[in-house]
């Protein structure tokens, strides 16, 4: 059974949705009376289903994705260097680990209209990372690997801790962008959920209290420590994010993590 010779191209255009409304209608009418064209169309639709079946298309290997990420990083101009934030310089502002933990347990709820645009960016960065496009540049649960990896890529040193014992295993780290500036993103897991912890130098004018917010179903928690600003973003419950903050603030050697 085959299509009428006059309609052989029409069948394909019909199948591909490339016919205008008038021709679509005309062809649908024709299909009702032409068994040959109807059978041909059915065969083409079955073929389409076989091609669309899983396993026909091959996804890109992860190693290739990694090489392309590295290429993008190598080809990208470093962000304009701003005042370098070195740890000793900011120590007087710093909270001790214990004090930070107390501050976290208080977890002041505040709305921060000034940071609304930033929160949208953070959620967008988080979502993009979890689409498996770019979760981590350096994948390891070893903080001694992650921390040096940031050296030379950032003009500040983000503290890195593995919080697996508290239920937040470290997955790795990557570079991300906030307000057109390169920032550190530490990636943690909570069960099946991803927590992105964005770290950047604190702008002195922006020393705000611990605050949380939510955007499109994602929770955000902001705090500051040692001259750095931290934003945790995840789809976990806000309570889990607060627990994450407590665990992070109480990490061994907080504020001077070797």
């Amino acid at each position, binding site marked *: 059974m085959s299509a009428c010779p006059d309609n*052989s*191209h029409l069948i*394909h*255009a019909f199948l*591909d949705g*490339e016919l205008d409304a008038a021709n679509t209608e005309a062809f649908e009418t024709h299909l009702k009376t032409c068994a040959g064209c109807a059978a041909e169309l059915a*065969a*083409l639709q079955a*073929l*389409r289903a*076989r*091609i*669309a*079946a*899983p*396993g*026909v*298309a*091959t*996804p*890109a*290997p992860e*190693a*290739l*994705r990694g*090489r*392309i990420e590295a*290429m*993008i*990083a*190598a*080809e*990208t*101009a*470093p*962000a304009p260097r701003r005042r370098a934030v070195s740890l000793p310089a900011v120590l007087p502002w710093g909270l001790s680990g214990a004090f930070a933990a107390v501050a976290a347990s208080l977890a002041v709820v505040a709305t921060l209209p000034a940071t609304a645009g930033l929160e949208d960016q953070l959620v967008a960065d988080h979502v*993009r990372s979890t*689409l498996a*496009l*770019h979760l981590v540049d350096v994948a390891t649960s070893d903080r001694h690997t992650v921390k040096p990896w940031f050296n030379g890529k950032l003009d500040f040193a983000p503290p890195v801790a593995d919080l697996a014992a508290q239920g937040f295993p470290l997955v790795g780290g990557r570079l991300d*962008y906030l307000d*057109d*500036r*390169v920032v550190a993103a530490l990636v943690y897991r909570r069960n099946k959920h991803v927590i992105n912890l964005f770290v950047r130098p604190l702008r002195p004018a922006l020393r705000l209290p611990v605050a949380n917010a939510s955007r499109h179903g994602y929770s955000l928690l902001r705090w500051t420590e040692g001259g750095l600003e931290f934003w945790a973003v995840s789809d976990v419950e806000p309570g889990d994010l607060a627990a994450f903050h407590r665990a992070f603030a109480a990490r061994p050697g907080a504020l001077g993590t070797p």
Partner: protein
Amino acid sequence: MGRILSFRNVRASSPDAAAGRASPPGSGRRPDDSAPALSAAEAQRFRALVLPHLDAAYGFARFLSRDATLAEDIVQDAFLKAYRGFAGFRGGDPRAWLFAIVRTTFLSTTRGRTTWADPEATEAIPSEADTPEAALLRQGEAASVRGAIEALPEPFREALVLRELEELSYRQIAEVTSAPIGTVMSRLARARQMLLAALREEGEP
């Protein structure tokens, strides 16, 4: 069969092959001497617009080259070109733009290594390694469909993959392959007929 097989052999045995992989065209340039590096904001835009199509680009390159390793090289080189030429991307569907680069990269990569100059010339010369008979020996329905697609001559294979797997419109396929829309339609119709016939044969041993 000869040309495509010899191409594979050349690639596997030539001492140039490894060097060619290590330094694809253009990559010898350092970002700091001639190519102006993109800003962090542009890099972010590239990640958001182009990088999501990595799997699609790889799938296309894989069917074009019929070689997993070569497909990786083509895609990596294409992404480098795409990134360096990102300033020239003027909106539209980033996939069609990226596929055109992948295709150009494929053609330039293979031109230097094979005797085939005109891709149309391979129309009647399917690769022996990928005939439906060979595909039949592989395991699984998906593998046999993949094998049958790989056995299609190049212009037909390309049109079919861009339409069925990448879901480009006729107009986009015409742009990517630099062919008139009428030609795209003919190739697509022919590709489907050949594929149906191959899979039907396979189903009736």
